[in-house]
């Protein structure tokens, strides 16, 4: 599902979800197109990396709010793609475009490996791990 960017809605949206994969743009200072993969059900998101607006909860804030309210899904995988240009207008930069294609393939494989409900949603040992600087 697509979220409009209001992090507060995430808590309502994943209310009954078991595994959740969340994909967002990231600004951490890494090279454009870098793919970050964070198991957010296990560790906090780096707040400054995920952009937020003046009146909406950002992704990191929403995740931490969910964590403090015990409303995180049992598995929350956050994929962040390092952006290059956050100005108004324009489209994806070539580096980000390539990363989007790469992460799509990876996600399809990862989704197939997520265990079903009968296993309580725990990550399987064969989970594909993306290195922080891989594309």
């Amino acid at each position, binding site marked *: 599902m697509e979220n*409009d*960017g*209001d992090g*507060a*809605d995430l*808590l*309502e949206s994943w209310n009954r979800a078991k595994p959740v994969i969340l994909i967002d743009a990231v600004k951490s200072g890494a090279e454009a197109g870098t793919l970050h993969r964070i198991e957010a059900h296990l560790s906090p998101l780096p707040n400054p990396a995920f952009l937020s*607006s*003046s*009146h*909406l*909860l950002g992704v990191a*804030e929403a995740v*931490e*709010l969910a964590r*403090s*309210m*015990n*409303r995180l899904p049992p598995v929350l995988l956050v994929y962040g793609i390092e952006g290059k240009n956050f100005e108004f207008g324009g489209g994806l930069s070539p580096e980000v475009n390539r990363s989007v294609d790469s992460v799509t393939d990876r996600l399809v494989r990862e989704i197939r490996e997520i265990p079903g409900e009968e296993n309580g949603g725990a990550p399987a040992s064969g989970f594909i791990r993306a290195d922080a600087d891989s594309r």
Partner: protein
Amino acid sequence: MTVKIKDGQVKDVQLRIYEPPRFFEAFLRGRDFREAPDITSRICGICPIAYLMGACHAMESALGVKVEGPLRDLRRLIYCGEWIESHALHVYLLHAPDFLGYESAIHMSKDHADLVAQGLKLKKVGNDILALIGGREIHPVNLRVGGFYKVPSRRDLAPLAENLKWAVEAAEATVRFTGTLPFPDFQRTYEYVSLRHPTEYPIEEGRLASSQGLDIAIPEYERNFEEEHVQHSNALHSKLKERGSYFVGPSARYNLNFDRLTPRCREEAKKAGIGATCNNPFQSIVIRAVETLYACEEALRIIGQYEMPDSPSVPIEPKAGTGFGCTEAPRGICYHRYRIDEKGTIADAKIVPPTSQNQKVIEEDLRSFVTRHIELPDDKLRWQCEQAIRNYDPCISCATHFLTLTVERD
């Protein structure tokens, strides 16, 4: 924010807004009049309806077109949705933590998870109204000059009604909760400015009224109000030409239109400790809760009597003219004025957001507040000034520590 203190007296308070100047008024020139709603809605992500509606009203005024009946009801309904989601966000996630002594909503949620969950659910009820009628929550796409692109049926609105029945009870609980909060004893005399309607609590229609006797039609706005660029801030300061600062937003609407609230709202306001008038800006959180209750009740009423219109919009044809629109964004009156040529091309635009209209009164509040708490250490003073600014719910108050306070003591 800079505070200059000399010999134990506050000499000056200046609030610098470092938001980059927006050039919307400039790049609207040359665009088609039909584009104004969607372009101006990008001014604000939390109150897009205020800009969509102001632009639509202004263009319709220029074209001599009226949108009435079920189309007007749908506009009022989606605006209720905006009030619900904006007020719920502010009450629960931005303002309540101040009064309960928490650094942020995240800190507050550790001890008050049910409270925050209620706020998020209320916010979602508002968002769902925007999504269903407007096409999406952020920058809705279904509103246009003349009405809508597509209108819902009664059946489409039924799920909203179910959610709103819960929301009315939750909003009432919100009023009661805010009534228990500890408020600083702080009151000033303000000139409140809001819309005033013959029968309704004002959201999207009415004349402009003030607590000092102003009573004008919307096209008279620029004869009575003006903006000035102050050296220390990127934001323009609005003032009444004859009297100076003024106060827009929920407190203004409440003080000028208490009699237009529903009986339930008036009753709950009194139980929460505020009467027909309230001049303590810290109690604006109670007023926002009362307005949330009103919006939930009003949304249910509109859905209850809604009949799907035959057409999603009224016919419009471009012609030369100047049009004016002013509606009540969650934060206060939002004024639009456009001049268009015979082809409908925008020649000139003026947009005055509510937050910039409150700049002067915020500075005056801060000056008064700092004067009373001049002995506080700087970090405590900064925290309390942030709280004082959050009374106005401006679009800069969300960061936990957004304020850089410089105190110059001589």
